[in-house]
């Protein structure tokens, strides 16, 4: 299908497991007429990108699905950023005034928005307060995409009673979930195989993109996609590459967004890479989906070596392109892999180097693991499975 073309449910027949689209259509028939409302604080970013497609397909299926955005003043944006960071475990100063602002903004938006639906799904912390004035009709779910396992206690203690006004909470992983008195469901995130990041790409387009990024394709490529931050350990990846380089002539590509002011590891990475023409450090443009698609397709082995991570869907995107993944056990990385079948988990630089060498010495293993990884993603991490989970939630909670 042509890049940028409008994607329809039927298009997923070519990529989803056999029978999936027909089954989704049957579920749609069963739930036809139900109203599902998503609410988030923004229409941009990684969450919004996936949600847009989910909303479109649910409507295609006959489930009346809408998506509303909350609004807040400039100071609310600061509050919301601080709350998000504090919930992720980065120490922040959260004052009573900030908490009050969070709640007031929720209540103001609840007055402004039309929130009558069979199921209202509120995404993440910024709009969490929408639930406070809720009425009796409809069921409410809080969809938390963050890892709350190390949330700042003072903040979480203040937010927990608000969250417990919902009928249920949905987390991306059990290890991300906080203790709550309401039911907690686990729904893994998923990739869209027809998005710009994952669509099929011709060899010539791929070559064009790689030329543009100035990455030669003369040697096997090791690739890590991720921010240039210490917790993503790009320097550790360079050290692993150096151990591999003693035995195999390879390239290393580190690709990530330009660091925010004060971003900490880029200087070290550039310094470490400066004397080695086989290391490419790529600062990605604001909408890097095409570039990442090309890089992942050109890679021989994908690496994800963060010390702390969120779900890290980069694992599934690389596996979808038939690449074995060598990853740490942080965040959602091991949950996307079948260890020793689609890739390896490692805990050290030496472990990463050993597994890379093992794969490079056994090219047939690269092909076999890559193929197993693509099938594993097809069954477990495509947006079609994500849709099933949301429909199951709708059916379970609304009867």
């Amino acid at each position: 299908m042509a890049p940028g073309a409008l994607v329809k449910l039927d298009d997923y027949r070519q990529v989803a497991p056999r029978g999936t689209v027909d089954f989704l259509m049957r579920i749609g028939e069963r739930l036809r007429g139900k109203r599902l409302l998503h609410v988030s604080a923004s229409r941009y970013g990684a969450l919004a990108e996936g949600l847009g497609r989910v909303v479109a397909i649910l409507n295609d299926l006959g489930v009346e699905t809408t998506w509303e955005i909350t609004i807040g003043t400039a100071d609310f944006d600061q509050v919301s950023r601080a709350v998000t960071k504090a919930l992720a475990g980065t120490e922040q100063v959260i004052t009573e005034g900030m908490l009050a602002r969070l709640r007031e903004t929720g209540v103001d938006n609840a007055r402004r928005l039309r929130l009558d639906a069979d199921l209202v799904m509120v995404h993440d912390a910024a709009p969490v307060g929408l639930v406070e004035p809720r009425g009796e009709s409809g069921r409410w779910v809080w969809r938390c995409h963050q890892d709350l396992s190390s949330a700042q206690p003072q903040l979480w203690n203040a937010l927990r009673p608000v969250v417990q006004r919902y009928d249920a909470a949905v987390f991306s992983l059990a290890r991300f979930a906080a203790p709550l008195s309401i039911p907690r469901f686990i729904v893994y995130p998923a990739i869209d195989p027809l998005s710009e990041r994952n669509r099929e790409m011709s060899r010539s387009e791929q070559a064009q993109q790689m030329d543009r990024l100035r990455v030669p394709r003369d040697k096997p490529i090791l690739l890590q996609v991720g921010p240039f931050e210490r917790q993503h350990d790009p320097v550790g990846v360079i050290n692993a590459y150096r151990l591999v380089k003693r035995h195999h002539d390879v390239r290393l590509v580190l690709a990530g967004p330009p660091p925010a002011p004060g971003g900490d590891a880029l200087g070290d990475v550039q310094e470490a890479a400066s004397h080695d023409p086989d290391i490419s450090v790529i600062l990605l443009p604001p909408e890097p989906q095409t570039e990442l698609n090309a890089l992942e397709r050109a890679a021989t082995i994908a690496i994800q070596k963060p010390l702390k991570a969120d779900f890290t869907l980069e694992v599934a995107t690389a596996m979808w392109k038939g690449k074995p993944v060598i990853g740490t056990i942080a965040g959602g990385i091991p949950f996307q892999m079948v260890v020793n079948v689609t890739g390896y988990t490692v805990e050290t630089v030496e472990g990463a180097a050993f597994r890379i060498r093992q794969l490079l010495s056994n090219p047939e293993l690269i092909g076999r693991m890559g193929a197993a990884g693509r099938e594993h993603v097809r069954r477990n991490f495509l947006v079609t499975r994500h849709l099933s989970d949301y429909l199951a939630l709708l059916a379970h909670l609304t009867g």
Partner: protein
Amino acid sequence: MSETQPFVFLGCLDLNELLPHEAHDARELVEQLEKVPIESIFCHTSAALLHRPVLAEAYPNDFSLWVGTEVRDVRLAERLAAVDAFHAGSMERVREELIATVSDHLQHLGTAPPRTQGKRFRFYQVHLVPVPTGHQARTLIEFRDALAEVDVSALFYHTIEARYRAGRGRGDFAEWVGGVLARPDLADRLAHIDPHAGSLERIRDRHLSVLSDAIAGEGA
């Protein structure tokens, strides 16, 4: 003349609910096994089939898998793997067998049980939502052809869920073939297909092969 009651194929959606029970070692595992709802035992034994990865894993249920890979107690993992959820008769019986296995292991251990090296065991329960697949059958041939086409979750719903949780006899396929089509011999063969075949797709293949043999036999 009475019309044959059709077999209506249902698939299912599943939703995993995280329970407030977890274990870090075998002692905690046995304590929690005594407390968790029976749906959780079903989830971690029989329903594991719903999400089995591309290649069958070494151990057939979540308990043995966790003990083997995270606690790294191979003896206990092997013994838990031998608890057969599909032949125990009921989920309460499965719970009893799991508890007895872990308790016996702890008694003979002599020292404190090893703690998990990685992930703790988190208990879930699974909620199933039945969904019509749009396929139905009145004859054996229609039944076989529909079975080849339906969403794989229908295999789970009509065999594992029907037989081991909902208590619908020997599973919906065997009951319909034996009762409505009056083919007790074939019903027996379907009921004896081992759910440990590896994956739902493999269970589908075994059903298709039994049905195709029976259809070929009719033609001979």
